């Protein structure tokens, strides 16, 4: 089985001229989309700067200087200048210090500002479920997920929708780009084609990181202890993926939900190979609502994924 395809996942959107520039949540990739939803160009700076050497949150920030964007990975990545031509073509180069720029930081499950002119970008939470909508006069329901970025140019808005709930935690959420025409009674959506960026990414160091798994298991087994204190029974821990993408599955039952099996899936390394996982995100059994977790999706083995 080959490596999974990595699709572009916009975390930042900026209007530049008559185009919207989108920057990926993690990978060294930016794309321009037209106001009619065409992908004009895609650029990578994988060869220009090194990937971050540790997980961080916020993990990336951007600044805008006229027709250029500055992208910097945190905590201490080298800034990159992304130049945008009027036709939407892009060029990326490593930059010197860019201290004068006004930085913008990502939000995990929402976007700021929540409104621009007559446009409102709303992410709603109900327990661990997320839904999103955009209003501009009328309302467009964006369905499951949350709006993590938007850009408004005249009558058009472009939004990035993170297609994931709060639980189960998703390590590689899909981010869908949608263009919204605001000239109708309700925003009229047009999806932007997914962009395969598999050959523009930094190479993953996951395979080299596998020895660190031993330390990570301290977290996993500590969390199992908390689970047992809270009524977890018949707990089984499966570890797989030693070839480079380890996965730790904790499968269990609960006294309060007889006859049901639950599973929590943890990926200890992020897509770059840095130690992260549920430990980094502080997702722990001590601090969960099992009632809400029980509403999670069911996998092909009949287990509730939490």
């Amino acid at each position, binding site marked *: 089985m080959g490596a999974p395809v990595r699709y572009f996942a916009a975390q930042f959107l900026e209007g530049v001229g008559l185009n919207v520039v989108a920057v990926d949540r993690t990978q060294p990739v930016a794309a321009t989309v037209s106001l009619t939803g065409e992908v004009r160009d895609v650029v990578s700076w994988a060869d220009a700067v090194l990937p971050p050497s540790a997980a961080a949150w916020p993990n990336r920030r951007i600044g805008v200087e006229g027709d250029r964007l500055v992208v910097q990975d945190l905590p201490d990545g080298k800034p990159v200048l992304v130049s945008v031509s009027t036709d939407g073509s892009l060029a990326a180069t490593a930059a010197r210090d860019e201290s004068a720029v006004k930085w913008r930081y990502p939000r995990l499950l929402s976007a700021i500002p929540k409104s621009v002119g007559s446009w409102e970008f709303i992410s709603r*939470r109900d327990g661990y479920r997320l839904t999103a909508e955009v209003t501009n006069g009328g309302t467009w329901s964006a369905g499951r997920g949350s709006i993590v970025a938007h850009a408004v140019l005249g009558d058009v808005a472009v939004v990035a929708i993170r297609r994931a709930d709060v639980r189960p935690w998703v390590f590689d959420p899909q981010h869908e780009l949608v263009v919204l025409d605001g000239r109708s009674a309700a925003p009229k959506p047009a999806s932007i084609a997914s962009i395969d960026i598999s050959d523009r990414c930094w190479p993953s160091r996951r395979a080299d990181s596998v020895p660190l798994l031993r330390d990570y298991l301290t977290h996993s087994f500590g969390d199992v202890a908390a689970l047992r204190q809270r009524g977890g029974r018949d707990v089984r821990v499966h570890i797989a993926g030693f070839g480079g993408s380890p996965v730790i599955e904790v499968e269990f039952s609960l006294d309060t939900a007889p006859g049901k099996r639950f599973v929590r899936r943890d990926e200890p390394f992020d897509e770059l190979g840095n130690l992260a996982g549920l430990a980094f995100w502080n*997702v722990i059994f001590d601090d969960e609502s099992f009632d809400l977790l029980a509403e999670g999706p069911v996998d092909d083995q009949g287990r509730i994924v939490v």
Partner: protein
Amino acid sequence: MGPAAAEPPPAISSPMDCISRFDDDNLDYVGDGWADALVSAVNGISLRCGDERSGVVHIGHPDSNGKTHPVSAETQNFFLGCFRTIASSGRAQPDNKFPESRTRYEIFYGRDEFQGAPLTKTGTLIVDNERGFVYTMFTSGSTKSPRGNDWRGCAEGSAA
């Protein structure tokens, strides 16, 4: 290189300041330093506004990446009282998930029961050892309030 500080937070912020500033359309929450804004400090442990992963926003804002334990204008003094009680008199032990880097502080403030099984009402703080900031705070063991935010019971050491 540092972010521009257009509107720095005050020396001490309230929990509700943190929640509302995180939602403020006109504020650069991270860039202006609100994530590090101090809410309370006791015994070398600092409760800060934080973000989706830690602090007041993680604990009480709907954009938290965890279960939200709501804080309101009506409960924020109890929320602070809970923090101060745990930080000043909680039993400290290495957090079993991060024994090298985090400390878990707990107070036991009462008893309850659920379907005949005894419950111990507990207030918990998880604290970063190196920088002393609070990752999260929650309560457990009370059947009379939703799991996680029995701030009054925790602050007063009595039944919620």
